[in-house]
């Protein structure tokens, strides 16, 4: 375990009800509890962010997948580490409270295209596509019974895989519009700084460059559907040719295999390769440049 992670784990323990023992036991950040999972992913992402910065890797753009927004804001120095934990907690509690009594479900469908998925969700009013991962992978959400039925339909249509996910809270669902307003009110009372690098919104791929934009995106992220594919395409079209996945695992690395463009994605296990590559300017390189 790196010193960065150790330090952040201690700070998280002090700030929120984070189960460090369980975290260390699981070693992957993959909790059964949704809130603990979010804490774990956030802490790991922030630790990686610190390592990147210390290694001299300058980031032009940041984007956060789903609740990864808070880690992106931490990286962009728009919020402090403890503020990010607080935002995760408050968003979770607000959504949980609003969704009490609703049998909500989320599912993933792989192997169909956007048109197929749209035709499936159009059959039930409560269904929506809450995230477009790439051109072959989609997250849908709605009442559990509707999601189950939609997954069966998808399978019949030729989906290579469908899976009902263990996500019970309706993040990114339009049903959370009121929660979004409440969350906006909460965030308005926080000290949020202009991002030090451009953040790409996963809601509509817009550039977020001011604290006012951040505030808007925090609220949007609660109730608006997200489109990871569009955010990635936006960055690729801006010329980004190297991405670093700051988080546990390599889900985004794998999702990116189905996104067009000449770019590389480095996940956690590839970080050493990146740091050793000529894409990263070493201290000696920098001195040479200075002398030249």
């Amino acid at each position, binding site marked *: 375990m790196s010193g960065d992670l150790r330090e952040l784990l201690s700070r998280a323990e002090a700030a929120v009800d984070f189960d460090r023992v369980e975290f260390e036991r699981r070693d992957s950040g993959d909790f059964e509890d949704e809130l603990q999972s979010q804490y774990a992913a956030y802490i790991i992402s922030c630790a990686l962010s610190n390592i990147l910065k210390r290694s001299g890797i300058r980031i032009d753009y940041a984007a956060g997948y789903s609740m990864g927004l808070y880690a992106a804001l931490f990286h962009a120095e728009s919020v402090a580490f403890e503020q990010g934990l607080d935002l995760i907690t408050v968003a979770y509690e607000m959504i949980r409270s609003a969704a009490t009594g609703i049998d909500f479900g989320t599912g993933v469908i792989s*192997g*169909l295209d956007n048109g197929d998925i749209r035709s499936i969700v159009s059959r039930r009013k409560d269904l929506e596509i809450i995230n477009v991962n790439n051109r*072959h992978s989609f997250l849908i959400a709605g009442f559990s019974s509707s999601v189950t039925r939609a997954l069966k339909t998808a399978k019949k249509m*030729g989906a290579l*895989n469908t899976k009902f996910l263990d996500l019970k809270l309706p993040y990114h669902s339009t049903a959370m519009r009121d929660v979004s307003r409440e969350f906006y009110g909460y965030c308005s009372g926080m000290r949020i700084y202009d991002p030090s690098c451009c953040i790409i919104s996963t809601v509509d791929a817009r550039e977020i460059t001011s604290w006012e934009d951040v505030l808007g995106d925090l609220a949007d992220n609660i109730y608006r559907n997200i489109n990871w594919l569009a955010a990635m395409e936006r960055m690729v079209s801006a010329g980004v040719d190297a991405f670093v996945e700051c988080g546990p695992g390599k889900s985004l690395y794998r*999702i990116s295999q189905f996104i067009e463009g000449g770019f590389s994605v480095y996940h956690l*296990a590839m970080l050493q390769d990146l740091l050793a590559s000529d894409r990263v300017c070493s201290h000696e390189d920098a001195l040479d440049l200075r002398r030249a």
Partner: protein
Amino acid sequence: MAKIESGTREEVRRLVYEFFSEECEVPVDQLNDGTNVIRDLEGDSLMFLELLEVFKKKYGLNVELKTVGKYVVKHPAETIGAIIAMTMLIIEHENRIAELD
């Protein structure tokens, strides 16, 4: 339909083993045809999509994912051996795989 040459099966076998070894971070010598990708390697659907993409590019295959999906519903392939066999069928029949029993 892609032409199956004498070395194709061995090439497919090697690529499939290398793919799962790298993706699942398991040494190749710990894998065998009976290894269940979902249960033993904690793999998921995106891996199969990725693998399919690799072969589509490598052999210039004209095959729709939906067609493969419909075939998989009838003929689930969860072990490495079954995935190799199915990949060979996809290379051989492309979209006509749907016509197979």
